[in-house]
């Protein structure tokens, strides 16, 4: 449970920086900057639209 983020949370990608830069994401009410490498470690099992 790193950074206090639990499993089965909805992740919203708000924007992505240019030139393969980091993502700006939102999980619950928390907004984070996350690099591509760290983002690739997130396991997305399903998406509810």
């Amino acid at each position, binding site marked *: 449970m790193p950074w*206090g*983020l*639990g499993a089965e949370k909805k992740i919203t990608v708000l*924007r992505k920086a240019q030139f393969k830069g980091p993502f700006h994401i939102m*999980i619950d009410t928390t*907004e984070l900057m*996350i690099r591509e490498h760290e983002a690739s470690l997130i396991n997305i099992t399903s998406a509810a639209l």
Partner: protein
Amino acid sequence: MKRIAFLGMPNTGKSTLFNRLSGSSARVGNWPGITVDLHAVKTFLGGHMAELVDLPGIYDLQGLSEDEKIVQSFINNNKIDLAIVVLCSTQIERQLSLLLQLQKLHIPCVLALNMYDEAKKMGIAIDAVLLEKKLKTPVIKTSAKYGEGMVELLKACTQVINQKVSTPIKKIKPLNASDLISNEKTIQTLIKLTVKYPTKLNDKNTKKLDGLFLDPYWGLPIFFFIVFSIFQFIFTLGKPIQDLMTQFFNFFRLDYLEPLFINHHGIFESLLLDGLYLGVTTVAAFVPIIILFFLIMSVVEDSGYFSRAAFLMDTLMEKIGLDGRGFVMMLMGFGCNVPALMGTKIMRTKELRLLTMFVIPFSLCSARLQVFLFIITALFSATYGPLVLFCLYLLSFFTIFISALIFKHQFKNKEPIIIELPPYRFPTLSQIVKRSMIEIKHFLTRATKFIIIGVLLVWALTHFPMDVPIASELTYSGQLGKWLSPIFDPIGINEQLVIALIFGFIAKEIVIGALAVIYGVEGSALAHHLYSNVSQIQAISFMIFTLIYTPCLSTIATLKNESKNLSFVIYSVFWALLLAWVFSFIFYQTSLYFSS
């Protein structure tokens, strides 16, 4: 004595709450199992003497980051009578896990729902009474920023520390998957019962500002404009104050101190005035810029813009092993390296912070600029002078990038870079002032000793033996210059210039003053003397060396204080000296080859 620990995730206002309750009179203490400084303060609470300890912000008791290891070690090695768990009310669903983990260790807790004012603004409502009942832990709504809920919080703390604790506190053990799932389920249930979110989060300002500040086209120009404005503000206001202070110190020396020694000329007077007084005033002259820097930085940091700057610059900085925040600090270093080094505190990972501190001293600071302006004006025409200065700035950037690129594997950041982008906030005036005062106190108490020792050493080198002219070739520094000539001759730096470089070790501002003492002429006469005795190629080589070689004593002292690692300081000074020599050598020998 009761021990009360403040725990919470980063950006929850934990330290603000700690300062609010402790009156920011915290001292730095030593703790079993802990090698880093923690702030603590003694106070009287509920009929007991209590010690409040501010622990670093952590996400998890199980984490492997430096800060998390510190907290784990503190909990396992020190008796805690009460933990004040501070969480940001707007992120309660993410932050409750820390409280649940502490409760499992049987540590008595009080939960502070901090920044409740922000939650209200966003339309989030928390039923604190029900939450308290479900958690079996006092829950208090607070706003440390505005001092709300402090009385209630102290009352709850008093009640808890006066309760008899029958269950022994456990040591931290690794959580397994079922523990994590169980925690997560408990949190979900608690949130469903006690927290009401609006259908749409009511934080339009943050969305609008992010739209502007993180715009793919306008984001970077706005960022450079903001940094440039901060830089301009600090130095437009700070430099004249610094100059005024220097003038005052000179006036005080000439009119009050020197007359005291009118009948006692000699080594004692020189030691006091040229050694100790110079050392103390060198440190004091930095204070105005440091005050301004931290006043502005606390506004920028607390506003949430810093994380946005990191987002914008991260793509470039990632390639050299740094992150976006490092770029902001590097730019600040172009004003003064000292506050820029102190500002790297915002980085949580040790390796990332060390690499950033490693490269900051290569930023062409305002003190080096003074030296370069004097030499350029003396030796170059108005057409070529600005070009030389521009090339020195380019070299400064190049040195930073090349050093980071070379050492990024040595200071390899093993932790993921995930930076929180908090909502935009504006800190209160008292928060800004308190924070700046703490930083200045740290700078003064820690840097002074180191700087005075350094100044006394250079004083001894330039004043002994006693029967020869000060700073002449016959003094130890002069002999050192002669001894070092096989090293400096190939880069075109003569013995007199070597002595000036030794002075420059204290502060770059005194290089020109040192040259005046060495050559025995001042101002325009010194400029003329340099023009007649030093070639343009030699001058550029000297400026390249001055730009890159060991930073001033205040910077070295700060590097030592912030890294708490003497080997790191020696390593970075040695690298700077090596790089300075190599670059000067390449320039000087290539220029000689082509000019002949």
